[in-house]
């Protein structure tokens, strides 16, 4: 039996410590990990808690991120609560096995501390790795601060392990901007946190020797399509209601309210910025300042990136006149991911908002409030003219001559 850790009601934790504490409180059975900056302190934290008797589990040291996720897959198939963490190139090396985890319907929790992907080498935060995971069949939740990184881990276990879901989930946080930024985190007691997540309920576990099962089968043309269709069906129909139910239960327990799409001052907004991670909160502060000047600006933050909240976004954006999509990742050859997703969400809805795209913050480049004020000025001009007054895709915070495309 693991020892209980006494926590203060508010602890000053960075996002990594918040995630590590959540893994401890969920009493994860197996962590197989190959540490990489900036996510290292998450698995290091779990290992320390385990060594000090605060968690009953196994820490498996492996030789690569590919092996880390492979170890997680084996442990999850065996029938345990499983989690790990990674970033950047490590995430990229995991990609092959991510598809195995989701295709085998194994509810593993992966904390992704978002970091740029080289070359050039850079340990700082952007969303390149998060975007790389978007077709992998995982649920993807996004934290904007250390509190969210803590809370969303509990939500992730509860949703992923649900027998109607049985899909793996990523909890994303911004490298350094969240992972290494200490802020006040409202804690749950060990007992309350564990009871919210609940006892792990195995399903088709390989260690149930009385009921032998096969995992990771070969299907070829005969059944592959049906398997993938069932996986997509679960991701598209089962997940959102379970996330919403988990958010509601979590709010009743803690008073902290999460939404599939987070909105700020959107009721009467004429212009809106759509972004993810810490940028959402900085944009909220900028909107407060703009509202004080009478400018009707709002913010939309994506909380659930996969499955994509298409219908919720169409509803939220129906009266907005100009939308700026902010992508913290180089799209390499097209418009940014959020631009594509939002355009796809609105295309059949009759919404006639002017939509443009900003590439910002690559490799940890600062997104300042001044940048955001400039973006809202663009959007205001677009709203007033009803047409694009700027290039479709602009680079923000880049040194040298202005760069834009389309």
């Amino acid at each position, binding site marked *: 039996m693991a020892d209980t850790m006494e926590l203060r009601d*508010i602890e*000053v934790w*960075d996002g990594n410590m918040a995630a590590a504490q959540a893994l401890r409180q969920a009493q994860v059975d197996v962590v197989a990990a190959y540490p990489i900056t900036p996510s290292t302190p998450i698995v290091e934290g779990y290992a320390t808690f385990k060594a000090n008797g605060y968690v009953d589990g196994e820490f498996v040291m492996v030789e690569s991120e590919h092996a880390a996720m492979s170890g997680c897959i084996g442990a999850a198939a065996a029938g345990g609560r499983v989690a790990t963490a990674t970033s950047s190139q490590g995430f990229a090396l995991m990609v092959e096995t991510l598809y195995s985890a989701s295709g085998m319907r194994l509810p593993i929790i992966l904390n992704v501390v978002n970091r740029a992907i080289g070359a050039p*080498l850079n*340990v*700082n935060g952007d969303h390149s790795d998060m975007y790389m995971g978007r077709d992998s069949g995982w649920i993807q939740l996004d934290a904007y*601060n250390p509190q969210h990184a803590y809370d969303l881990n509990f939500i992730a276990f509860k949703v992923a392990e649900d027998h109607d879901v049985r899909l793996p989930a990523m909890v994303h946080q*911004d490298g*350094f*901007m969240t992972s*290494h*930024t*200490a*802020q*006040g985190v409202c804690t749950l007691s060990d007992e309350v946190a564990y009871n919210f997540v609940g006892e792990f309920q195995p399903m088709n576990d390989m260690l149930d020797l009385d009921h032998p099962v096969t995992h990771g089968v070969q299907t070829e043309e005969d059944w592959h399509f049906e398997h993938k269709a069932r996986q997509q069906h679960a991701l598209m129909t089962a997940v959102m209601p379970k996330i919403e139910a988990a958010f509601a239960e979590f709010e009743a327990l803690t008073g902290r309210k999460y939404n599939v799409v987070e909105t700020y001052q959107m009721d009467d907004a004429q212009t809106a910025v759509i972004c993810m991670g*810490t*940028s959402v*909160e*900085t944009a*909220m*502060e900028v909107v407060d300042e703009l509202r004080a000047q009478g400018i009707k600006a709002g913010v939309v933050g994506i909380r659930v990136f996969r499955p994509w909240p298409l219908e919720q976004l169409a509803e939220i954006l129906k009266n907005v006149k100009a939308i700026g999509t902010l992508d913290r990742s180089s799209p390499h050859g097209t418009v940014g991911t959020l631009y594509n997703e939002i355009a796809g969400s609105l295309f059949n809805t009759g919404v006639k908002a002017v939509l443009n795209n900003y590439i910002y913050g690559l490799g940890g480049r*600062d*997104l*300042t*409030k*001044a940048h955001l004020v400039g973006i809202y000025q663009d959007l205001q001009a677009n709203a007033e003219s009803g047409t694009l007054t700027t290039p479709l895709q602009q680079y923000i915070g880049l040194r040298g001559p202005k760069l834009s495309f389309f």
Partner: protein
Amino acid sequence: MLEIRWHSRAGQGAVTGAKGLADVVSTTGKHVQAFAFYGSAKRGAAMTAYNRVDDAPIMNHEKFMAPDYVLVIDPALVYVADFTAFEKPDTTYIITTHMTTEELIASQPKLEGKKVYTVDCIKISQETIGKAIPNTPMLGALMKVSGMYEMDFFKENMIRVLKKLPQKIIDANMIAIQRAYDEVK
């Protein structure tokens, strides 16, 4: 919003100092943020760390800061780092040096006409903790200059923040904090 920027060399404890300060401030019900610029900087490289303190939740995640206080915990950084970047007219500087405030300003004209305080955190930490870890003494100096908290309250909370360290080291840190509080000018 109170904003503090630390100038340090990697390994001197600015991140620990910033996080420790955030922890103590948080116990008083205020909202806090502590972060740093990392990169692949190795021990000894110039780096910066940051604190924000406010009565309301802190939503701002930009790294840009126009600081109310600049804390320099390595004596050479006033000559090589851009420690006055984005200063405000009333930015207060607390600088680690073996010199007097007048000697320091004479050697670094950028400080002329500024609110400057000096304290030798390197010497204090060497004589108390036994090595040049100038972060906790700088917090003692900050308490004196800012009047942020009573010394007893601050030290009581720092003992909690440092609780994982051996008792001897905690005791030495408390002496270092008190000395910097008494010696900052």
